[in-house]
């Protein structure tokens, strides 16, 4: 799970406030206004099918994205590829864990 903090308009505070945003994989899982605590999240029953559809798209588009990256910076691509491949199973497991904990 990754977290970002950004300014968005809070409907409870009626003004722009800092919000904490939590992501699982590429999907936004929840947001929270840091001032009033107003919280939004995706219902747990919706998160898994949404995640699986997104994962399918990620996998399908991966070869093209790798190809583009290799074309832009071949040496950097080759240098980082082994580490990136090795990180995938752990990354995926972390995403699934986050969804089932949600």
């Amino acid at each position: 799970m990754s977290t970002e903090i950004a300014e968005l308009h809070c409907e409870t505070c009626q003004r722009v406030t800092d919000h904490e945003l939590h992501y699982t994989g590429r999907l936004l899982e929840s947001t929270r206004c840091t001032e009033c605590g107003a919280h939004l999240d995706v219902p747990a029953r919706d998160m898994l099918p949404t995640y699986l559809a997104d994962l399918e798209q990620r996998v399908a588009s991966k070869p093209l994205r790798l190809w583009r990256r290799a074309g832009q910076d071949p040496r950097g691509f080759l240098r980082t590829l082994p580490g990136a491949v090795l990180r995938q199973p752990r990354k995926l497991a972390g995403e699934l864990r986050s969804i089932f904990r949600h």
Partner: protein
Amino acid sequence: MPSDPAPVRAAVVVLAAGEGRRTGSHTNKVLLPLAGRRVFTWSIRWARLLPEVVRTVLVIRDQDRDVIEATLAREVGPPKVDVVEGGNSRHGSEWAALQLLAPAIEAGEVDVVVIHDAARPLAGSDLWASVIEAAAELGGALPADDHGHLATLDGSELAPDRIVAVQTPQAFAAAPLLEAYRHADTEDFVGTDTASCIERYTDVPVHCVPGDAGNIKITFPDDLFIAERLLAKARWDLSGGREGGRRR
């Protein structure tokens, strides 16, 4: 036999500088992740699928420069995007972009300038095409979404039947637009939007084209969830068939 008209050449200006409130390390909302890309690169992607688009200018805040340039390198392919620092207002940011484009406009290399808010990632290629086409033909064009169904809160009086929500991208003939902003700079006029400056200093008519209800502006936290779902529903493809369904 009449020859085909010359192709329109458009410069796209994407405003990503925000409203100037941001301090510290908080993420500019246009830099937030959205379905595998950053918010601001989605609209650049759809615009640049059009053959008419010959230049792209991204207006930023200086504090975002490193992240923006890294994101452009990762998510946006060639040709190069020109990055320029914005002003203290939307008008100032537009003026900064127009100053950068001025030599190309004066040389007749750009016919139309399209101004877009980077917080609207779901402006698809068809919408970009319709404003560029209308501006090339008529002078100015902006997308408007009809809200004629709205009622007043107390129910005492019916709302006018033509309430519209104005969106971006908004396109204008390049030379009059540059001239209007030069006049505005001389007189220290700060317009609320591009059309207000055009209307004040030129007689270029600004026409409405049909907006897109899905072309939402990321303002509230809910908008990020909605944008994510709308993209998924469109199979992450707002190219109007121009990209063959491929995802970059």
